[in-house]
């Protein structure tokens, strides 16, 4: 039985604990470059054209047990809604141990896959546990939580990770997993992301991207941004002659070295064969006449149509911070997207619900129409996605640049985070 004196002691200690907890209320500190106790990969893909390599590392000098959850966010073909099919598994990582696995094949526990004189076998190393393979067509997220042997959450803050997405064309894109740091974890279910037990999720995400639907100026400058007039093949336009209808130079550097427009151009090196030239456009009234602006089409009339040049598409993958893996209830966050261009002009989208997982092009009307047809006026745009009250949002952004030959290359970037939304909860199955 507690005595009055012990109650007073307890009260004093409770005050101290309150002050301590209050004093440790830090701003939301989800991170993409520090260890944490919750590790989230918002974009994980295993399709016929793309697969993902997951790397997870224990940064501490002690063994860490991790309970991981795949969430399949691909659309159900009957309902059109994300499936939210959860598959979980457990990893044990010894001190400082890195591990890796491929999402489409998982990783078996096989003591015979060891070091060889010829090099490494694919899964050489201490197998961290049986990792299931995800079905073809999987698009979703992976969430890993630091737990103790009983399955209860633990706040070791030991986990970091990254995801590498490889396509069958050879394209590579990579991003760091987002970590949530434990402060004074409740070591019980659910995990409270409230800036007291675990850091809260951010209230907004910001990425600065080449404008969706616009051009990639670097590709335009150094890569394939035009078409050979005769052969139709891809070519570079910068640094080569602009010509009028008579293949006479209208600008350097190919005007016979005399720096005088009017000279006869040499053949463009990218366009083999005679007087073929690299052009960014063709006159609308006569497709055999090369042009770079409407004035070049004066002789035949009409405007100058730019041939396919570089283009950029941007995709946002968003996941709610909250998830209930025990009762299989996906989290939902209402997000609002604002886009700013270089002129400070702003376009806002309507709030849309993000349940489980979503990946949309920035211009998509489903993102609220914020950038529908927008962003063509300036080279870059800032895309700011804000979660709803007491519901944070996490994500990654992907940019795909395409040149005039149809070659594409993608890159993934972690967004900047701002603010704090201390209302999220993750409930794990134990």
């Amino acid at each position, binding site marked *: 039985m507690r005595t009055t*004196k012990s109650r007073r002691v307890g009260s004093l200690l409770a005050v101290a604990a309150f002050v301590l907890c209050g004093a440790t209320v830090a701003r939301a500190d989800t991170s993409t470059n520090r260890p944490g106790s919750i590790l989230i990969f918002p974009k994980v893909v295993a399709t016929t054209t793309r697969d993902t390599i997951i790397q997870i590392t224990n940064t501490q000098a002690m063994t860490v047990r991790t309970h991981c959850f795949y969430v399949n966010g691909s659309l159900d073909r009957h309902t059109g809604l994300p499936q939210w099919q959860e598959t979980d598994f457990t990893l044990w990582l010894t001190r400082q*141990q890195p591990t*890796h696995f491929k999402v489409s094949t998982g990783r078996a526990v096989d003591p015979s896959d060891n*070091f060889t004189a010829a*090099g490494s076998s694919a899964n050489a190393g201490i197998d961290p546990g049986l990792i299931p393979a995800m079905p073809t067509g999987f698009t979703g997220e992976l969430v890993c939580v630091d737990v103790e042997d009983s399955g209860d959450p633990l706040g070791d803050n030991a986990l970091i990770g990254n995801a590498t997405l*490889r396509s069958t064309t050879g394209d590579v894109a990579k991003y*760091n997993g987002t970590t949530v740091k434990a402060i004074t974890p409740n070591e019980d279910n659910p995990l409270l992301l409230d800036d007291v037990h675990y850091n809260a999720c951010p209230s907004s995400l910001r990425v600065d991207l080449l404008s969706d639907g616009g051009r990639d100026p*670097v590709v335009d400058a150094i890569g394939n941004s035009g078409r050979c007039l005769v052969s139709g093949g891809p070519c570079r336009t910068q640094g080569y002659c602009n010509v009028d209808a008579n293949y006479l130079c209208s600008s350097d550097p190919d005007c016979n070295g005399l720096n005088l427009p009017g000279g006869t151009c040499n053949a463009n090196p990218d366009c083999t064969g005679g007087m073929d030239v690299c052009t960014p456009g063709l006159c609308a009234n006569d497709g055999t006449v090369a042009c770079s602006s409407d004035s070049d089409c004066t002789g035949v009339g009409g405007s100058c149509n730019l041939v396919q040049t570089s283009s950029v598409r941007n995709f946002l993958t968003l996941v709610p911070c909250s998830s209930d893996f025990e009762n299989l209830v996906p989290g939902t966050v209402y997000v609002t997207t604002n886009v700013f261009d270089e002129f400070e002009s702003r376009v806002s989208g309507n709030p849309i619900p993000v349940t489980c997982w979503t990946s949309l092009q920035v211009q998509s009307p489903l993102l609220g129409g914020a950038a529908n047809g927008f962003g063509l006026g300036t080279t870059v745009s800032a895309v700011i996605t804000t979660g709803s009250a007491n519901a944070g949002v996490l994500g990654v952004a992907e940019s795909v640049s395409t040149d005039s030959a149809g070659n594409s290359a993608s890159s*993934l970037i972690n967004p900047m985070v701002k603010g704090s939304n201390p209302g999220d909860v993750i409930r794990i199955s134990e």
Partner: protein
Amino acid sequence: MYNTKRVGWAVVAALPLIIGQSHAVRALTRSDRPAAVVIYPQVEACDVTKSSICPGNLNRDTLIVLSNTKANSVSVNNSVTAHCFYLNANSHCTNSGNICTSSSQCQNGTFGSCVPGWTETDFNVTLTPDQPLSWSALNGLRKFPITGLTCSTDQSIKCLTPGASCGLNGTCGFGGNSGSLVPPAPEIPFVGELKCIEVDPATQTPFGGDARNDLKGEATLEQILDNGTLDVAKYDAVGVIANDNNDGNSTLTLSMGDEYEDCAPVIVFDHLFDGAVDPIDSSNTAQSDLTLVPCSEDLQTGNTGSGASTAQFLVFNEFEQRFSTSRRVDCHFNSALSLIDTTQPTRSIFNAKVTGTVAGQTRIRSVGGGLTGVARLSFVTGTSTVTTVGSAAYNLHQDVGERDTPDTIQLP
């Protein structure tokens, strides 16, 4: 007997210590938050029509994006001025002054050595609220979107009074990007870093007093590969966080609790070992590049020794086996992983032939000045002639700890 009074006073006495310790939240450098200093550790550019020594004879460029994350205000000028520095890390022949990568390129009748260089080119960029700006290292940026006082909803409307109403529901800005000019990279080919520091445009030094962390940056490394295809690799700029006690002078002190937070004492680099078979396409193998730059920099005198440090690498494979090596970092360190400790890659502790596993963790501790950096993973094909299939850049992780000595950035 339990004395509650003594316990109570002990708790009260301990509170400041508890609070003080709990408020010592380490910020370290951040790549996912706005900051006062943004560092782009790897900037590269080359045009094969302008240079015969482009690495791999490939066209490449870096698209730099710098943005002001402060929101618009009708009454307060939330524009931000960044004083930026290109740091050119090209090596040059001592006899001809030409760019070189090895001394063998400097033997043209007279004996010459290929000596690493470190020269800075600085410029200012003023960003309006929430504005992102971009430029390529090859071309720079001369034409800015907002010049002078213009109306926020219609740039063609010039106005006189900042904050005044104008146009259709617009507000008069505070001066736009006036005073900004971004030069092209000073040399072709170019390899080096870019550093941008939030400053008071009047003094060209940081604002004194309260912390100003408003800058955010990204860099996209683009190259045209051997087969004419496109390769794009993107990373977030590393941010140095300012604290509330800036003295506003030209010496920036990076130390926990000081003007700016310090660089990480330990960088954690999660990677695939060089030569590891690509888990997705077994016809390719992995190859990584690591870039490290010092946190300390003397931009006033160009003293490259000011930020020099020794990077100690502790490497773990998936068997938890441990290897180590170290390298000197003077101004800009960029190396293929398996060339860090040897000239023979297949004998490197960063090579899968030695470590035996695909994935690795490398913990990099700096002795001397602090370090920060970025990594790039490539998948390549071929053995005698290696061809890049695709690459991706990514930011390095950090681990907490204490740094013994502060770093300093000395502005001119």
